[in-house]
């Protein structure tokens, strides 16, 4: 057994048992961050804050929400929105955060792609991040079922139908997922369970993995510079704070994180109080009705690009393209054959590839929402083909890249 002495203070008492000083150093004051990074590197903290907002507001909503097809709609729209003190506030925070979190995730992802932050030892950061993206998507979808409005019901119908896998006609699988022939009580109950227990557990675990994956390779920087973190840290600790290329996570970078968070929260709460409709589709304020299909069924905006990759093709080809779109981002570290870990603007063809991918995904997003008629369906088809072509081309254009 370890040797314990009479503690001289509370801190000392804790220190002997939990090594809090060491933990603080490892996690914060001697967790070294390069200095040459910009505000895009604060998106991790912004995501963390948004996730906490989702978690806390979700806990409050959970106290009044009723996962029953007969009462779910009213428990949200009457009980929470009218009867419960500030229930409307928690609901609007939850709904808006669920949408905004994807905006930040996309910014975070495209930052990683632009600066090559998935390369050279950072592969696991990227992969754990993409697993987070997938679990967040499942979390968003399962949460969308819970108010049991028209869009909940019909999105649930459409998305679970995908699992019949077209020509394979796996209708038994679809029924197994739904627990019924159509979305009904069993369906609502299990999506409730997924939304409030299983998926949040998976997300918490993956967040831990995502942070741990960052530990050894360290944070990337905006110049593609290889930094000797040990040497630079020594320099900093010796007192040359100005000359060192690194800084402490806390308080040095965290002060900037908080500045970005502050500005972000102004934007976020503006949306919560004055511009929430984009995140809370009007159609979902009609109670679920299995006999009345809405004129337009579309997913929330953050799923539109992959929905549009599914939609313009015949069923089976569409499903293959959709499956391709779901996994291809995970494989990015292995599809990028270039030896360079530098920003895209210094990587020639890859720089063009990056902007084409971004624009293509915005086009897909727009076409995914618009009704698939006339020019829109043509543009959607071209954009979906372009998406696939871009990813097939990636290994070839990056293999040709010269070492800088």
């Amino acid at each position: 057994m370890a040797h314990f002495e009479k503690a001289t203070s509370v801190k000392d008492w804790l220190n002997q048992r939990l090594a809090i000083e060491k933990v603080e150093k490892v996690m914060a004051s001697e967790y070294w961050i390069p200095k040459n990074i910009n505000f895009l590197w604060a998106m991790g903290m912004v995501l963390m804050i948004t996730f906490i907002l989702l978690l806390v507001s979700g806990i409050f909503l959970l106290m009044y929400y009723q996962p029953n097809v007969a009462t779910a709609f009213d428990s949200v729209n009457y009980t929470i929105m009218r009867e419960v003190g500030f229930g409307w506030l928690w609901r609007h925070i939850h709904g808006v955060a669920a949408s905004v979190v994807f905006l930040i995730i996309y910014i975070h992802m495209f930052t990683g792609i632009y600066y090559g932050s998935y390369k050279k030892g950072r592969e696991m950061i990227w992969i754990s991040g993409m697993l987070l993206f997938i679990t967040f998507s499942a979390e968003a979808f399962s949460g969308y079922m819970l108010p049991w409005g028209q869009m909940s019901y019909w999105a649930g119908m459409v998305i679970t139908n995908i699992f019949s896998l077209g020509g394979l006609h796996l209708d038994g699988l679809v029924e197994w997922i739904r627990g019924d022939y159509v979305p009904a009580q069993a369906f609502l109950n299990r999506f409730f369970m997924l939304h409030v227990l299983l998926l949040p557990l998976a997300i918490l675990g993956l967040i831990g993995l995502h942070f741990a994956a960052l530990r050894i390779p360290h944070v990337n920087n905006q110049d593609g510079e290889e930094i000797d973190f040990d040497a630079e840290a020594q320099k900093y600790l010796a007192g040359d704070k100005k000359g060192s290329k690194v800084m402490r996570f806390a308080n040095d970078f965290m002060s900037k994180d908080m500045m970005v968070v502050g500005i972000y929260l102004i934007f976020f709460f503006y949306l919560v109080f004055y511009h929430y409709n984009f995140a809370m589709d009007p159609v979902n304020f009609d109670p679920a009705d299995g006999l009345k299909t809405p004129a337009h069924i579309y997913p929330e905006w953050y799923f539109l690009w992959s929905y549009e990759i599914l939609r313009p093709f015949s069923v089976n080809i569409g499903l293959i393209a959709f499956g391709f779109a779901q996994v291809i981002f995970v494989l990015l570290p292995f599809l990028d054959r270039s030896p360079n870990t530098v920003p895209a603007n210094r990587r020639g063809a890859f720089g063009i590839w990056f902007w084409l991918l971004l624009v293509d995904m915005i086009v897909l997003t727009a076409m995914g929402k618009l009704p698939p008629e006339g020019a829109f369906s043509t543009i959607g088809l071209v954009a979906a083909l372009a998406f696939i072509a871009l990813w097939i081309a990636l290994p070839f254009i990056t293999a040709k890249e010269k070492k800088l």
Partner: protein
Amino acid sequence: MKNKEPIILAVVVFFTLVTYYLVEPYAHGVMHKHVESENYAYDDLPAINKTGDAARGKDLVLGAGACTGCHSIEVAGMPAPMDPVTAASSYGVNPPDLSNAGVIFDGKFLANLIKNPAHALMVEHKFDASKGQMHPMTQFYGAGGDLDQEVADMVAYLQSIAVEQESVTPAMAYENACGRCHALKYENWTQIGTKPSFKYKKDELAFDIKVLEYEDSITKYMGKLPPDLSMYIRSRGEHYIKTFVENPQNYLHGTAMPRVGINAESMDKVIEHLEDAGDTKREERASVGANVMMFTIIFAIFALLWKKQVWRDLH
């Protein structure tokens, strides 16, 4: 090293706004037809250029016009000839009480309604007299004098017994203009009136059965049960509801829903009532919102100052 952050921020904001514009205003503009308000002018109906006389109107409404054969006028001491459930099983829908019709509905509309109900209500596709499909409200053919004068007198009478426009409450406007077809569950409103609280379960069940019977009649009359409007302020929004009520045919050609003929002031009251039902906490949202924004801005300023202080030593 040059500070690239402003340009990076501009790029992020630009692509975010482009995406927002495409999936929200643009896509919704394409998906949903935009209908401009007709300002409750009911321009398609001919104006009645006669000045009505309320006293003569009273005789017509209570006498030759035979309005009270179907309608109650409670302020004039005329009770309903039938209870709502029986009335609905006879006419399809319970004929409204006329006490405040003169203030809720547009005067020109009322005059045209009396002369030709199916035409004013825009339900001629459903009630075609030439095919023997008569509207349950009988057309007023006149009491022997000048028809337009008589109609103007009747409208003048209805306007004279109604409350002042300022006294129209949101609930009153809703109940008169919408409430006989549309329930409003979140405000405890059924098509046969506000649901009372009952001491005994069997009394409550008896009331519920009456509502169900009424709903059966109206379902038969309209083709489907008119929806509960509790969340319509969120699911449809103010502009849609206002322009829809003005002329339902603009949105749903061939719909059984009649044009209601409400005036602009009363329509605002209907909207207010729907907001009370489906957006109850809008005032609290505005005041909490202002405080939270102020707090967040102060937080951001402090965070900015803290960052400046910490980073002074780093560069």
